[in-house]
């Protein structure tokens, strides 16, 4: 079978000692740098890209792929242990991962994230290998109206994801959208809400906002709580580091659903990976027998978004490789690296450089495997970090946050911005406003607006464009459905009470 031959070719190259070593270096470096707060996959690859310039192309790209996975994984680690998420995906993983860590179950949480990533990667690799070209064509059917409707449904999904009132959830999403408006407007070129500052011209870096709202706010809150803060102290026996049979059983379904969602949404440039994690979490909460466990350390709340994120990360290579169009900033960086090594992305890459293409596919899988192997001994070390007294821990965290924010663009403004959002995040904690939906709004904000405006430009002002295109219409129906299942039971009760 052709497919097997191809994979064999890929594994043959990727398993050569040299390639394996670069993959391992990538994964290791990525993990250690990704652990630093605020330095996510994008920054890690950006920082280490020059290192790969001296390598042969295949090795270089495989090392970058390793960096990518390592950094994503490192990000999840800090998110779970310290509630310091660096990416949209790890924000969602931290919702239940951090409570688990506080309950002394950081080990299972960390191991689970690798196991789940690995499982999702296995599935996504088969999808890429078998269906990349047709799926890329499908992604092209998403024009501006389809994106707008999809994101509308996604944002509503994020608003209902939180514990608490729907009004607050929606208000936080809208607040995120508003924050996303800051900076130069793509459609007109006019700077908005920048208050004359060039530093805000490109908008507020979402890494800065995440680190402020989640990480720094958490530090402020913990310091303010003093001895009252919830902290896990005590020893974890070695066997408690790995997930229990029950953990595995509980996460199996969640992993499968997350992988499915992630594989599909990953095809859509820009919006995909972030939305898939939020969607996967919302779905789990909806299908769970006892939704109240979520946000308090439910293992499905880690498994589903982690699976979705990894599957999406893999399938987002499909538009990158087969259309030559990068799905997000990280993909753009990888694409740039490929071009720098003389590899021109596009469908012809499969035929013109089959060794490269299949080796890359194989190395996704190997990278994940290495991550799993690397992670098991590391988990013990990460856990020990939790027993460092907080009065030593928090100045260290603030130091890493400050340097991390500054190093993003070498702008001191970003440090101030993170500090400001730390204050806002602390206020949100005190007011019981959950910040996760805001984040999706912030990421999707500019895209929602641009796609709405583009749709109106293309249709010359006719709103029916959203209803006459089948894909767009189905997302709008989904949006109505989301609202209905949330408001439905309450309205029904009220109607019944009134009728009685």
């Amino acid at each position, binding site marked *: 079978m052709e497919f097997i031959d191809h994979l064999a070719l890929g594994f043959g190259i990727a398993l050569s000692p040299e390639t394996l070593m670069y993959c391992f270096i990538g994964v290791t470096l990525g993990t250690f740098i990704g652990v630093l707060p605020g330095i996510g996959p994008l920054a890690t690859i950006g920082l280490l890209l020059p290192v790969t310039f001296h390598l042969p192309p295949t090795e270089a790209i495989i090392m970058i792929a390793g960096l990518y996975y390592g950094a994503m994984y490192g990000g999840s680690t800090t998110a779970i242990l310290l509630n310091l998420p660096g990416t949209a995906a790890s924000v969602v993983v931290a919702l239940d991962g951090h409570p688990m860590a506080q309950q002394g179950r950081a080990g299972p949480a960390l191991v689970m994230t690798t196991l789940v990533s690995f499982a999702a990667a296995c599935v996504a690799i088969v999808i890429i290998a078998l269906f990349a070209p047709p799926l890329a064509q499908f992604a092209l059917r998403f024009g501006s109206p389809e994106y707008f409707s999809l994101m509308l449904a996604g944002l509503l999904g994020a608003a209902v994801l939180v514990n608490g009132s729907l009004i607050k959830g929606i208000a936080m999403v809208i607040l995120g959208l508003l924050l996303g408006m800051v900076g130069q*407007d793509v459609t007109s070129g006019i700077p908005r809400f920048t208050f004359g500052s060039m530093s805000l011209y490109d908008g507020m870096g979402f890494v800065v906002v995440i680190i402020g709202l989640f990480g720094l706010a958490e530090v402020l809150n913990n310091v303010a709580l003093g001895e009252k803060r919830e902290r896990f102290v005590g020893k974890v026996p070695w066997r408690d580091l790995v997930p229990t049979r029950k953990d595995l059983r509980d996460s199996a379904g969640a992993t499968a659903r997350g992988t499915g969602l992630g594989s599909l949404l990953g095809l859509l440039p820009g919006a995909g990976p972030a939305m898939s994690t939020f969607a996967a979490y919302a779905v789990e909460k909806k299908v769970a027998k006892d939704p109240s466990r979520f946000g308090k350390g439910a293992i499905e709340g880690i498994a589903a978004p982690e699976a979705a994120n990894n599957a999406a990360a893999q399938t987002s290579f499909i538009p990158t490789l087969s259309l030559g169009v990068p799905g997000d900033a990280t993909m753009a960086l990888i694409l740039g690296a490929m071009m720098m090594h003389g590899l021109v992305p596009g469908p012809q890459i499969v035929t013109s450089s089959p060794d490269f293409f299949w080796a890359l596919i194989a190395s996704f899988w190997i990278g994940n495997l290495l991550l799993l192997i690397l992670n098991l001994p590391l988990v013990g070390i990460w856990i020990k970090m939790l027993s460092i007294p907080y009065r030593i821990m928090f*100045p260290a965290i603030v130091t890493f946050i400050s340097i991390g924010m500054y190093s993003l663009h070498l702008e001191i403004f970003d440090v101030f911005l993170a500090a400001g959002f730390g204050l806002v995040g602390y206020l949100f904690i005190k007011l019981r*406003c959950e910040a996760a939906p805001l984040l999706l709004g912030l990421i999707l904000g500019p895209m929602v607006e641009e796609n709405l405006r583009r749709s109106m430009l293309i249709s010359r002002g006719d709103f029916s464009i959203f209803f006459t295109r089948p894909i767009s219409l189905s997302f709008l129906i989904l949006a109505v459905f989301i609202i209905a299942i949330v408001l439905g039971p*309450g309205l029904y009760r009220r109607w019944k009470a009134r009728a009685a």
Partner: protein
Amino acid sequence: MSTNDQHIDPTLDLYSGAIFTAIGLGAMITARNYPLGSIDRMGPGFFPMVLGAIIATLGIMLIVKNLEGFRQARRRKHAAAPDPEVDSSRRVGMLRAARSMLFVLGGMTFFALTIEHIGLLLSVIGLVIICSFAETGMKWRSTLLLALFMAALSAAIFRYGIGLPLQLWGN
């Protein structure tokens, strides 16, 4: 999910509502500076204006919804005898919070203002020392040790490990 919100203090939701309303109105006022455009050619002011209006409306809804609960809570508070213990523990909590803000954010401000002048090492040392004041019972010895350690670690990781163009000692 959206049904278990009864546990939240109505006062908090009232404040949230007030903040959302203020943000919404602020956004609408600022958005007036940008052209609104028309439906087929939406201007840069259109979307922020709509968002501002929605968030302000949601804020008002929150206020209205919690006004009654807020009044009841206040009545209950007035009716109950003043409890000096609760009051003083609240005051301690607020002081702690203020202290944590002041020193943590102060440390970051120090870092931001000095990193491009005195270099990474001194800037980090200052940051760690200022930050450490955020907790009561700060000990100089361990703080200084931590500051030196963090400065060395930062230099090792960011300057030498990742190779960021950071000056260690300033110009």
